[in-house]
């Protein structure tokens, strides 16, 4: 039994935003505590009590790449970032393209993970884009969505059949939008800086071509498609038009695509190398506008850990991606709520809770009585500085080390149990600042 006292409860699914207490009984949200029984309480004055945050786009690297991350360390990173549920991408080794890997991940997560770990399954066998993976069997084993993330099904006919087949199970399809022909060997946004730096360019059209394809197929099959980590202004424009016409197309945006531009690549630092790449300021502006006007409905990290030695190589040989779970909420609060005032706090929380929960049909993302008590306590105004040496993730490949941010999670509660709190966090540079909590 736990009472979260006197916080600002923001529960967008229930249109709730008020100062109140939140009761948790037997791991679930309850309307009140049973009278006469002992309970713990946490003073939440000055804090936001939000439904546990959901990140629908992470790479936890197990099975097969545990030097980068494990389910256990990835889950701790999620908790430290305020996330109570994460959705893993299937590009592990072996990939999640059959029910046995799904079961392996689920069982390992049950034993070792301090947050809820959901997994996706691959659309195609070996994520090779050639033939359908056993989608139905993976659905029975517990996947929550289909994606070939990191790859993109290039064959439009195959993509169409995958959509139609997945509709039987109401499994959403998440797509990493990349046209291989246009992108070629591109390692950064094609534009002024790729020209100056002599690095192969990854043009915006390489993303927009597949966003357009997905809009057409979502219309043809009358089934939803979710576009992952959008990076370009053109993609936002396509999406805005399609959604206005009622096409079932949605999209997510990652913090780095609104925090940084391709100009950051001047030093050839591979911690700025991601896929899709950092683009121009006009793209950043369009993404923020898309978030502000509701064209983009979901926020995610694309948490992509890599070992330091893998990243510390020639730029074009380095793997794409950065870790994100422990900087995600801070960056979104800092940029979207404080700096650009693109959205208010309740909308930010909705984009990190009920929006992904609805897409994936998860029984999460609300504070309705009776649901599992996944709760994130947020101090939206706490000023802190990113220190990668304190990361819970096994990897530290971040371009944000040393960046001052405003706002972060201070406690993460999963099924009524506190799994992380800032004041108990060892080595945390902000622990002192937060000790008053």
């Amino acid at each position, binding site marked *: 039994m736990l009472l979260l006292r006197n916080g600002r409860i923001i529960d967008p699914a229930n249109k709730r935003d008020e100062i109140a207490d939140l009761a948790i009984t037997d791991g679930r949200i309850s309307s009140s505590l049973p009278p006469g029984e002992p309970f713990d309480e946490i003073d939440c004055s000055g804090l936001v009590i939000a439904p546990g945050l959901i990140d629908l786009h992470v790479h936890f690297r197990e099975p097969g790449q545990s030097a980068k991350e494990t389910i256990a360390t990835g889950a701790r990173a999620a908790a430290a970032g305020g996330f109570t549920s994460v959705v893993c991408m299937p590009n592990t080794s072996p990939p999640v393209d059959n029910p046995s890997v799904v079961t392996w991940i689920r069982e390992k997560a049950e034993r070792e993970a301090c947050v809820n770990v959901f997994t996706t399954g691959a659309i195609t066998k070996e994520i090779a884009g050639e033939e359908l993976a056993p989608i139905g069997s993976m659905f029975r084993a517990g996947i929550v969505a289909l994606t070939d993330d990191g790859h993109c099904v290039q064959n439009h006919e195959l993509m169409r059949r995958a959509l139609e087949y997945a509709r039987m199970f109401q499994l959403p399809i998440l797509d990493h939008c990349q046209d291989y022909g246009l992108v070629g060997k591109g390692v950064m946004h094609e*534009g*002024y800086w790729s*020209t*100056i*730096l*002599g*690095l*192969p360019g990854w043009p915006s059209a390489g993303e927009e071509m597949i966003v357009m394809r997905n809009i057409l197929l979502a219309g043809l099959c009358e089934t939803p498609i979710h576009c992952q980590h959008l990076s370009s202004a053109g993609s936002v424009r396509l999406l805005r038009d399609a959604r206005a016409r009622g096409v079932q197309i949605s999209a997510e945006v990652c913090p780095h695509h609104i925090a940084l531009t391709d100009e950051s690549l001047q*030093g*050839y630092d591979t911690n700025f190398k991601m896929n899709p790449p950092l683009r121009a300021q006009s793209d950043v502006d369009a993404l923020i506008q898309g978030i502000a006007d509701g064209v983009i409905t979901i926020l995610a990290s694309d948490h992509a850990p890599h070992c330091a*030695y893998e990243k*510390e*190589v*020639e*730029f*074009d*040989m380095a793997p794409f991606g950065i870790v994100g779970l422990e900087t995600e909420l801070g960056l979104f609060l800092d940029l979207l709520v404080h700096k650009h005032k693109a959205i208010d706090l309740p909308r930010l929380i909705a984009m990190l809770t009920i929006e992904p929960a609805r897409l994936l049909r998860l029984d999460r993302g609300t504070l309705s009585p009776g649901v599992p008590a996944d709760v994130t306590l947020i101090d939206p105004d706490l000023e802190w500085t990113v220190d990668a040496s304190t990361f819970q993730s096994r990897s530290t490949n971040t371009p944000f080390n040393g960046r001052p941010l405003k706002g972060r999670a201070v406690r993460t509660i999963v099924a009524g149990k506190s799994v992380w709190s800032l004041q108990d966090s060892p080595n945390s540079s902000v622990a002192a600042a937060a000790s008053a909590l």
Partner: protein
Amino acid sequence: MTAKPKTAPAPAATWTRKDLVSIRDLSPEELTLVLDTAAAFKQVSAREIKKVPSLRGKTLINFFVEPSTRTRTSFELAAFRLSADVVNISASTSSLSKGETLKDTARNLQALHADVIVLRHSSAGAPLFLAERLESSVINAGDGAHEHPTQALLDVFTIRERLGHVAGLHVAIIGDILFSRVARSDIFALLKLGANVTLVGPSTLVPREFEKLGVRVTHDIDSILPEVDVVNLLRIQHERQRKEYFPSLGEYTAFFGLTRERAARLKPDALIMHPGPVNRGVEIDSEIADSPRSVILDQVTNGLAVRMAVLYLCAGANHTSSN
């Protein structure tokens, strides 16, 4: 024997760099310092005894991950003339072929007390990567499509030597600009020294983004030939991945080759340059390549002096100027 050439420049008070990674980094004053130093070193090569002791006791490693003959030989000779000890390593003879990382290979070279590492690499940014991690001087001998700083230095050296100045001249760079590290370094060097630059080539190989630097872009070579003081023809490669960029070498030559007819439309004193190796009959007519206006071999000779200057400034200047 004197320690320095007779017209040695003033102590390199304005040269504080350990490395030469890109022309884009350099100030116009630094560029001029390299050119002046190279002018002094050029006289050394004309002497009976072609050596000076500026880098005596220093070790230079020519680390060529991508093949090269002319640049490697030029650096090697430049180091010999400065009395340095030289070792050559290529990708196939290094442990890179056994899967060792660039960083580890380079750290091993440094552990052998290499004072200078001259790096040629197919990846843009590789010299900067090493320069940031090693105490040795790192000289960029060409990195991917990024820069080839000593080529640009020898190009502007040759222009200055022949025409007396660089500022105010109109230089056309013709060919595959998109994939050319020579083009990038040349553009930066020429602009910093006050020249006007026009890029010429097929629209697939001349990115418009370069206009943001203040250069002109045209796809009509004939319109600019009468105006320019220098034409710099880049090597056209059609053998590898270029087939999507233009249809054939024949069509390239028809639209962009410096044929005899086109050469006749140049100003009488215009210079014809080429970084080599030359595809005779493709980007340049064979006779034009050998004509008096061609300074292609002067470029090679000047490359030696420029590389001596760069090695001296990056690795030897502090040592010798402390006398």
